[in-house]
């Protein structure tokens, strides 16, 4: 008993809360202002520095380039809110990519017998594979108390191995047009990856902010003991968030395959780092219970804008790495000093 709540160091960091759940929700967005300002400042600087940055086409590029990491980061937000972490997303991206692609390729070597199938079949397969991978990690964490870091690191390694085995180490090429549409199609001029990202974002906003499940995710992360005593099945919540993260990884894997036109077994390496970074930059605490997908969106955009801007300006690769490191820290620093207590 006596689970240690641990108000993280920032507890009560000068946030005046008076008038309510509503206000408190607004306040919680206000805490993102720091990082939002960082994003805006960065965008202003970039649009002054480079004539192409603000043109519609580049904005579409940035959004499209953010969408995969953004989708992963949203799934990751759920996991991190429960004090967990999912290192396996990059590998699951590849696993879902190749398994679904096998049902959607016109190449006779790689196809599953009878294929290619109409797009819904590979789509379901990809989601299913992602969810299954998430369920395995989730079970290990929720039911067998394996630390999330270890469980998902195991999955990172195992899923990558399975992917390579399944695909024989080679890409699965020649995907059907239906499948490719997920990555290259558009709706009223908005590219599909962006559309999917938007839908996922809105859905997660709704789920986390307005549903019972969302409250339980926050509670299970904020104080698992209190949640349990309040009759919440914390293990089930924990399991669910890994399934959600797996689903998102599955989705991202298919978008990736569809965008690149073939499913690569070595896709997605180290994607977990960017996804976690987006979440943490967005203000979600790795200690659980505190954070919001809106922050994650901004975090993901920030990373996307930095990558895009540095490429646009043709900054040399090595300098890029230095600058990127500095910028990410600077953005959070700006946020941090604003929110610091006293």
């Amino acid at each position: 008993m006596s689970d240690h709540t641990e108000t993280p160091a920032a507890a009560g960091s000068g946030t005046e809360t008076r008038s309510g759940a509503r206000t408190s929700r607004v306040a919680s967005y206000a805490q993102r202002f720091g990082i939002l300002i960082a994003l805006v400042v960065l965008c202003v600087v970039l649009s002054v520095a480079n004539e192409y940055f603000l043109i519609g086409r580049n904005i579409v590029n940035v959004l499209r380039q953010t969408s995969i990491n953004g989708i992963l980061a949203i799934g990751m937000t759920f996991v991190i809110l429960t004090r967990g972490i999912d290192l396996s997303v990059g590998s699951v991206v590849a696993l879902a990519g190749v398994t679904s692609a096998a049902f959607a390729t016109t190449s006779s070597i790689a196809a599953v017998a009878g294929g290619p199938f109409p797009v819904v079949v590979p789509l379901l397969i990809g989601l299913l594979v992602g969810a299954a991978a998430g369920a395995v990690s989730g079970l290990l964490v929720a039911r067998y108390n394996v630390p999330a870091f270890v469980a998902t690191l195991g999955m990172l390694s195992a899923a990558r191995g399975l992917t390579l085995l399944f695909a024989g180490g080679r890409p699965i090429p020649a995907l059907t047009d239906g499948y490719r549409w997920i990555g290259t199609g558009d709706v009223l001029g908005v590219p599909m990856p962006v559309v999917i990202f938007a839908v996922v974002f809105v859905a997660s906003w709704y789920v986390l902010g307005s549903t019972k499940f969302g409250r339980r995710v926050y509670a299970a992360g904020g104080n698992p003991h209190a949640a349990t005593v309040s009759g919440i099945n914390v293990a089930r919540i924990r399991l669910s968030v890994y399934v959600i993260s797996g689903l998102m990884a599955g989705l991202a894997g298919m978008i990736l395959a569809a965008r690149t036109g073939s499913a690569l077994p070595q896709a997605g390496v180290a994607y977990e780092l960017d996804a976690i970074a987006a979440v943490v930059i967005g203000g979600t605490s790795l200690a659980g219970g505190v954070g919001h997908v809106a922050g994650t969106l901004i975090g993901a955009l920030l990373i996307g804008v930095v990558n895009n801007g540095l490429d646009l300006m043709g900054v040399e690769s090595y300098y890029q790495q230095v600058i990127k490191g500095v910028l990410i820290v600077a953005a959070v620093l700006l946020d941090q000093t604003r929110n610091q207590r006293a």
Partner: protein
Amino acid sequence: MRDALLEVSDLKKSFGGVTALSDGRFRLEAGSVHALCGGNGAGKSTFLTIVMGIQQRDGGTIRRNGREVSFGSPAEALENGISIIEQELSPVPAMTVAENIFLGREPLKAFGRIDFARMNDEAQKLLDRLHFDISPRARMMDLSVAKLQLVEIAKALSYDAEVIIMDEPTSALGESEADQLFTAIRRLKEQGKGIIYVSHRLTEIFEIADSYTVFRDGAYVEAGRIADTNKQDLIRMIVGRPLTEEFVKENAPGAETVLSARGIDSRNGVRDVSFDVYKGEILGFYGLMGAGRTEILERLFGLTAHGAGTVTLHGTPFSPRSAAEAIARGVAFVTEDRKESGLVLSATVRNNVCMASHDRLSGGLSMTRGAERRAAERMIDMFGIKTATDTLPVSGLSGGNQQKVVLGKWFLTEPDVLLLDEPTRGVDVGAKREIYRIMSDFASKGGTILMVSSETDEILGMADRVVVMRDGRVSGELSRAEMSAEKLVHLAA
């Protein structure tokens, strides 16, 4: 005879080698308040958490309305009409009061959306009914311990359960808030509910309970009707031997000013507070919840930014910028919230006791193991801390014993000036007396004590002088001769 709301027999529980409970027995009748009494570590909380399904028993039976039950989780206990206020407050810090109260059973509107408006409304109504002055929209992490406790009370009551377990619900409360709770309890009793009540404040038990059960060392000792017993007998049952007077006070204040505050400010509205403390004196601070007593101590100890005003210690300016500086000047601070600021729960008793005395216990770089062990053993002895060894993590100690570890940590620093914020919170009668004796000895030997307390008895029993606070300002100062419960309450309100 009607089936009891709850009947427990022969409940057993051990943690590894440590037996926490060997024979837990209890019978709760409808429409009654039943006090569960026992010293620190007697197994009360263990018993109650098992009933609630938070922990699993090793043996024994639990009957609910005559039917044998076995709760695998608190969810099942809640379904069976049992709710709990746990001894250790356990809020979800980033959530609002209303969200905490309705955790897991939020009111919904269309499309499964949570009806925040209704949730806040209902929380507001609940809090109003209990006369608790808390906004349902405030976030838990912004609340003081006392308010957290009120929220937990409101939450437990809101389940409309038939059996309500209250494990030291008033340990962080002042008397007026406790009175609000008692009003609510009486109402529940009339509705035929059963309440299990745990408290180390015996006056409360005689005020509210109908019957009692006493545990000692994990085993049932005796049960009966409160009407058939008295304080002396109950103490005898709890402690296992008779105890005479409750307060031990032998110190006499000297004339030398040790610490002197002039016009100090602090955050949360503490303004223009001045006082002097003398060598060998116990200065009490009394006030209602939120009067600003804690803030004064935090300010003195260097934990909050310094506002206006000056403080001198032994005649020289004293404005520490960190706890380390304060400790170096011979000041110690037993904080109010042991879980938050008092203990490292994952660390052992020994390491917690030694935590503020690292320099003293090390030879240069290395810690002196022997010195650490001896120090821990000395404090375990001095405060009667009940633990199998000093190398168990404090998270495995009972609440009252954890409090004693905090006291031990600070006495080990051999301070001149002791800041005590609710020092006997959750401590049993026997140990309380011990602590009072230690305080008295400390002052007799020339130590100086500043003691914040919400218990009038404690102030009246131990303080040489009392500063009464109201809304962040000093509303009066009384000498020992002038003190009375009425005057204290009058000045505080």
